């Protein structure tokens, strides 16, 4: 099929494997080995996108990941991924691509009216207008701006691809596989060091893959590449990662890599992750990221058909694609001449080489002459013509005055430009190293290393093939020696040709046109022109960071890799300060835009966060129970039967517990075994209560404060032996209570002979609560006497349950006779099934957390975190009784003595009864003294718990209320949108105030 700009032969593409793809629905062809960009160019397509602000037609500018213009949407599985660089899309059969930021079509885009109106839209225009009328900003102006902004459209559907993760360690990580990266890899690997070599491209070799004017060891560079890669591949200590971008360099030589695993495949195996995050800790890092060519800033330098010279050469030599039939080469640097020569050698009409310099090297001029190429020196491009593709360029002649005289017009269908080279210092900069200005290279190059890293080759400001190769070997050897202390002698390959190119220009080129009117682009994607940078300076922006933010230069998806140096030079000129005094913006990670899914990795769906289940989980599912998330746990919430709603189910569960018996899974409560001669002393110091006199076999409610004096946790603690306690905590509080205990134990009281061990997951716990609880458990418990006399309320024993050793607590969180049986976790299911079967015989029920909440509220038992909120003291909660008054110290004791914790008018926990027993207060509702408090009235407190109490046949609530303990009997109000609800302040115990039901 016709690929009119394909060369006759050459390139690394496979001409036997023709592939079909579509661009904006139009079918085209390319070859295996093409990128989307090279295939489009082969088809003569330059116009691929529209710019951000002015919607100007834009073409492919580069051949690398810094591409600012050719951003496309790639379709796969019925959805598209936006903003993919055409230069990084490997062509595959059936690839579907759309252009972006245009309506209705790429060729005719209504948004391009912005270009005509551009005089109204200089840098920062939006700060100066759209303020009137006031209401118009977010209703009118902003929606318009927002829909005009943005590049591609976001994906529409959830992403079903997976993303992998791998943690890795290595001696030497090498980022980049051009001549210096490959040499470094070889040198390091030969020492036996473990090496990871990564490159963002599909093939290793970097610039060598498009180098045809040099040899290495007498061989074509590409041959040397394949031999070198084969050598590396054969070594066990080397990991080679293609299509893998080192995107983030963090502290302690922690480098993040993004490996694109399947994106280049037409029909990937769904078991493969789409991308993989490599989190690498490297002893040494070699940055061999190369350098990128700089655009020249001349008027209308953004037309489709204008490319960087090296990109033009890459398309030709690597992909067998001519960027045009009549090509103008504009340069300030030697290297672009080679592009002109290569094009000429492929029969392309190089209409001229326009070199800014008065006297480019004689040798180059001679070669050009030999090929019959017109050479213009001291010559700049002052403008271009053409709408969706360049058709001519205006030349200007530099005069000694510094002015520019018109130098006529040349027709061309492509223009290759080179402003010189910029070392890629992004990773170095991310490593927190400071770049230094190298006046010889005319570039910022890596300065002193902050981390264990070294930059090599072009990334280090070195040019010329032999120089970069030699530098690479040295970097690899040095890194391996630093990492492992080992070295090896390997023969170094030598290169001839590919000499260092001299020259380069920063900033805007001089021209003979009205600088205030023409658009010479600095940042292509964000449509920032040289005059925008100057305007920012004129308006008082002096810091490069202000200039960047005001103009948005360097904030496009290439993060300023193409634009920063030119912008800096223009700013430097406008500020009349040396470039090095203006400052450089920081390169931030990621090096190139990186998929969210990669960061999220496997943390999605059920693996987003561990799902902790208790042994009764399956039983609950089978019996229609619903779950509540409490921390990472799934706790049975309630068990609706026969179409019951939550209210009905909970009411039924509560009634049955009070009437006969209920079964509740308490496994999630935190459990800590405190063991050692000083166990009681330790608890004495941690909890408010006294512990030393608690007899083995007995339990006590424990209240835990922080040292500020506020309640943080509570639970029942049983003494199993003189030196052994079984502590329980709240479900959510378990990890923090354990950590707090370790903190005090290890750092405040290391002298205590006591240790703590978490046993939360050691035991499954069933709570059996209700008048028939004893009858339910009796058949299964052996070894102890369950009678009230032998085992009173707040006791603990070791016994067996169905022959399995267990810890049996007689405790209650319902106010009924209750037991909690702890068996080793693997017997938990057996215990639950056994008890669940047994309670049926007693007309009992399983109940969930909601019924548990109601039952405990009827008894006025608090739930830490619901009835307390981190600002509540024991006194506030009416729990002064829990404080061991005679204790010398405990955590929180001194905190409680602070003025505000003893002040009048603190919020105190009380009960509230609505005047109308059917009205249930909302949890969180505010409590006021006035029935109709005016707006801004501070509340007296709020409702912490509120339920319908089946036992009382009415609603009940707990609340914290200022001075509440003194207000018992008084009427307060709970103002709601529908009207104020009068409530009576009561005590917190609503049911069985004497505790008669407990002690049976």
């Amino acid at each position, binding site marked *: 099929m016709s690929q009119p700009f394909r060369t006759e032969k050459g390139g690394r593409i496979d001409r036997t494997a023709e592939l079909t793809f579509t661009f904006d629905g139009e079918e085209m062809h390319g070859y295996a080995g093409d990128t989307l960009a090279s295939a489009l160019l082969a088809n003569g397509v330059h116009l691929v996108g529209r710019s*951000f602000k002015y919607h100007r037609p834009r073409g492919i500018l580069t051949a690398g990941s810094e591409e600012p213009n050719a951003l496309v949407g790639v379709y796969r599985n019925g959805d598209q991924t*936006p903003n993919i660089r055409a230069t990084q899309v490997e062509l595959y059969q059936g690839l579907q691509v759309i252009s972006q930021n245009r309506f209705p079509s790429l060729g005719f885009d209504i948004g391009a009216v912005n270009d005509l109106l551009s005089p*109204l839209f200089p840098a920062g225009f939006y*700060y*100066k*207008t*759209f*303020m009137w009328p*006031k209401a118009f*900003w*977010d209703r009118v102006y902003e929606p318009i701006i927002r829909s005009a*902004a*943005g*590049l591609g459209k976001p*994906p529409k559907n*959830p*992403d079903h691809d997976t993303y992998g993760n791998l943690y890795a360690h290595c001696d030497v990580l090498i980022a980049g596989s051009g001549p210096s990266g490959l040499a470094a890899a070889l040198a390091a690997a030969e020492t036996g060091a473990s090496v990871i070599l990564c490159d963002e491209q599909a093939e290793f070799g970097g610039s060598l893959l498009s180098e045809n004017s040099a040899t290495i060891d007498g061989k074509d560079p590409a041959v040397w590449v394949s031999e070198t890669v084969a050598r590396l591949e054969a070594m066990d200590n080397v990991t080679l990662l293609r299509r893998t971008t080192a995107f*983030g360099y*963090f*502290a302690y030589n922690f480098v993040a890599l993004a490996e694109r695993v399947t994106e280049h495949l037409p029909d990937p195996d769904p078991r493969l992750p789409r991308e993989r995050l490599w*989190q690498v800790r490297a002893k040494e890092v070699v940055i061999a990221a190369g350098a990128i060519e700089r655009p020249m800033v001349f008027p209308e330098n953004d037309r489709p058909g204008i490319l960087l010279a090296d990109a033009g050469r890459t398309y030709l030599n690597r992909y067998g694609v001519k960027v045009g039939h009549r090509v103008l080469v504009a340069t300030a640097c030697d290297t672009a001449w080679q592009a002109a020569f290569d094009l000429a050698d492929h029969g392309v009409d190089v209409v001229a080489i326009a070199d800014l310099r008065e006297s480019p090297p004689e040798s180059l001029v001679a070669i050009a002459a030999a090929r019959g190429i017109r050479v213009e020196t001291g010559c700049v491009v002052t403008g271009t013509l053409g709408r969706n593709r360049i058709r001519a360029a205006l030349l200007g002649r530099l005069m000694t005055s510094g002015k520019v005289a018109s130098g006529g017009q040349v027709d061309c269908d492509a223009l290759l430009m080179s402003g010189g080279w910029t070392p890629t210092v992004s990773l170095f900069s991310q490593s927190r190293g400071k770049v230094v200005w190298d006046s010889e290279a005319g570039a910022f190059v890596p300065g002193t290393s902050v981390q264990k890293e070294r930059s090599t080759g072009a990334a280090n400001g070195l040019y010329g093939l032999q120089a970069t190769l030699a530098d690479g070997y040295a970097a690899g050897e040095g890194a391996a020696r630093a990492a492992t202390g080992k070295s090896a002698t390997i023969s170094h390959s030598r290169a001839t040709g590919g000499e260092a190119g001299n020259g380069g220009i920063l900033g805007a080129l001089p021209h003979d046109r*009205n600088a*205030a009117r023409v658009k010479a682009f600095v940042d292509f994607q964000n449509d920032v022109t040289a005059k925008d940078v100057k*305007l920012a300076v*004129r308006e008082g922006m002096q*810091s490069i*960071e*202000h200039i960047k*933010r005001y103009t948005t230069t360097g904030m496009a998806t290439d*993060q300023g890799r193409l634009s920063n140096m030119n912008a800096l030079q223009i700013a430097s000129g406008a500020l009349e300060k040396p470039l090095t005094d203006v400052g450089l913006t920081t390169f*931030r990670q990621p090096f190139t*835009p990186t*998929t*969210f899914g990669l*960061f*999220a*990795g496997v943390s*999605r769906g059920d693996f*987003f966060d561990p799902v902790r289940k208790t042994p009764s989980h399956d039983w609950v599912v089978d019996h229609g129970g619903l779950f*509540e*998330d409490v921390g990472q746990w799934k706790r049975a919430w309630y068990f609706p039967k026969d179409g019951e709603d939550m209210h009905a189910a909970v009411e039924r569960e509560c009634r049955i517990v009070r009437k006969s018996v209920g079964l509740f899974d308490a496994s999630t409560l935190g459990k800590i075994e405190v063991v050692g001669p000083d166990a009681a002393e330790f608890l004495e110091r941690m909890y408010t209560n006294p512990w030393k006199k608690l007899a083995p076999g007995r339990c006590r409610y424990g209240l835990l404060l922080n040292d500020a*004096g*506020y309640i943080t*946790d509570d639970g029942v603690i049983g003494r199993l032996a003189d030196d052994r306690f079984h502590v329980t905590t*709240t*479900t*959510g509080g378990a990890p923090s209570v354990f950590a707090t205990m370790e903190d005090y134990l290890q750092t405040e009281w290391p002298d205590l002979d006591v240790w703590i061990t978490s046993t939360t997951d050691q035991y499954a716990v069933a709570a059996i609560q209700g008048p028939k609880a004893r009858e339910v458990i009796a058949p299964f418990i052996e070894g102890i006497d369950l009678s009230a006399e032998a085992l009173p309320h707040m006791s603990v024993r070791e016994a067996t349950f169905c022959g399995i050793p267990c810890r049996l607590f007689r405790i209650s969180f319902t106010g009924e006779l209750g037991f909690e049986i702890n068996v080793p976790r693997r017997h938990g299911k057996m215990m639950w099934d056994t008890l669940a079967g047994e309670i049926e015989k007693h007309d009992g029920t399983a109940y969930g957390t909601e019924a548990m909440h109601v039952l405990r509220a009827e008894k006025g038992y608090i739930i*830490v975190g619901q009835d*307390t909120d*981190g*600002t509540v003291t024991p006194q506030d909660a009416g729990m002064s009784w829990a404080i061991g008054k005679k204790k010398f110290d405990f955590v929180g004791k001194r905190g409680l003595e*602070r003025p505000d*914790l003893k002040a009048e008018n603190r919020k105190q926990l009380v009960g509230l009864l609505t005047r109308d027993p059917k009205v249930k207060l*909302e949890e*969180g*509702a505010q409590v006021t003294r006035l029935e109709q*408090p005016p*707006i*801004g009235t501070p*509340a007296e407190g709020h409702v912490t718990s509120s339920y319908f109490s089946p036992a009382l046949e009415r609603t009940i609530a707990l609340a914290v209320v200022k001075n509440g303990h003194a207000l018992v009997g008084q009427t307060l109000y709970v103002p709601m949108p529908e009207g104020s609800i009068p409530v009576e302040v009561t005590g917190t115990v609503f049911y069985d105030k004497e505790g008669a039901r407990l002690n049976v």
Partner: protein
Amino acid sequence: MKRYSFLELAKNAFSAHQNWGRQWRAPEPKAEYDVVIVGAGGHGLATAYYLAREHGIRNVAVIEKGWLGGGNTGRNTTIVRSNYLWEESAALYNHAIGLWQNLSQELNYNVMYSARGVMMLAHTVHDVQVSQRHIHANRLAGVQNEWLTPEEAKEYCPPLNISRNIRYPVVGAALQRVGGTARHDAVAWGYARGADDLGVDIIQNCAVTGIRRGQDGSVEGVETAKGFIKAKKVGVVAAGHTSVVMEMAGVRLPLESFPLQALVSEPVKPAFPCVVMSNTIHAYISQSDKGELVIGAGTDQFVSYSQAGGLHITNHTIDAICELFPHFRRMRMLRNWGGIVDTTPDRSPILSKTPVPGLYVNCGWGTGGFKATPGSGHVFAHTIAKDEPHPINAPFTIDRFRTGRLIDEAAAAAVAH
């Protein structure tokens, strides 16, 4: 000051924008000022602006170590809301909301305050209780906040995943419609331009190296990279560096500075209409006018002035975002950056006089200072001008940590059971 308007823009288009003046000057410091503000972030600049505008104190310098607006003002995720729990907090942030609503007009600078709504998601029964408590308290305090069912939340924010089958399903949300975002740089620049116009000197690239105190202990001025600057009063508004600056005056504060990161995606067409926050799974997100998804991440666990957060923090933030908005999984991170946030033990700011006469401090905003910028500057200017707090910031003292009278927003959302 030349006023900004569309007409002015059009006029300048004819002269190719060659005639715009400076937005602020770059003056050399004078020998003496009535008030020196340390730190030219949003809060510091706003303080200077209101000192000049509301209190007639125009002999003011704002001294900045780097470039104005370059700290947390230029690094945050620009969320504006006021639906805080405690009356003290709600009053402070609501005061700010009132000022936000007219700020562009007040400053003649479009700060792009966009009341697109801030939605805070609830995922558990406990979250619902906490949200409802906020809503009820806010209603009483006159602060807008309302409860949405998952379906209503999805209607307000169509990309939201309200499937019951995700790990932490959305069970509802609190929505503050008047909440939203603003353009962070514009806030700093607008205040800078406004203050400069009123005579305030903004002195950039000038680090404060010392705070000089007289024999009676009161403030005499500040030592700077450009020499000693005498001042009757000094207001420190140095965010993450507050401890460092206050130590120069011998004042210890209950502050710790942590790295906080934020990130943006590549710009895409409008995809996200509001601000969504989830405290339970630690994520907040909005879309900028440029089209970038703006995402806030958590703080690292250790004190640091490195302005660099860890990758594991980023990972945890993005996994949460992708759970809530699964079609953003293919979006890509464009840029990630860090700031230094100064946090107090109760996660509420300190806006207060200090034990040193003439020295005032405005700090401890943690991760949420941007939203308060106008209100904070306004009441802090009052505090400095009158040498006594505005009623709104009166509770935000240093002494509250001694007495225990905390304004603890974090504790109120305590997780336990």
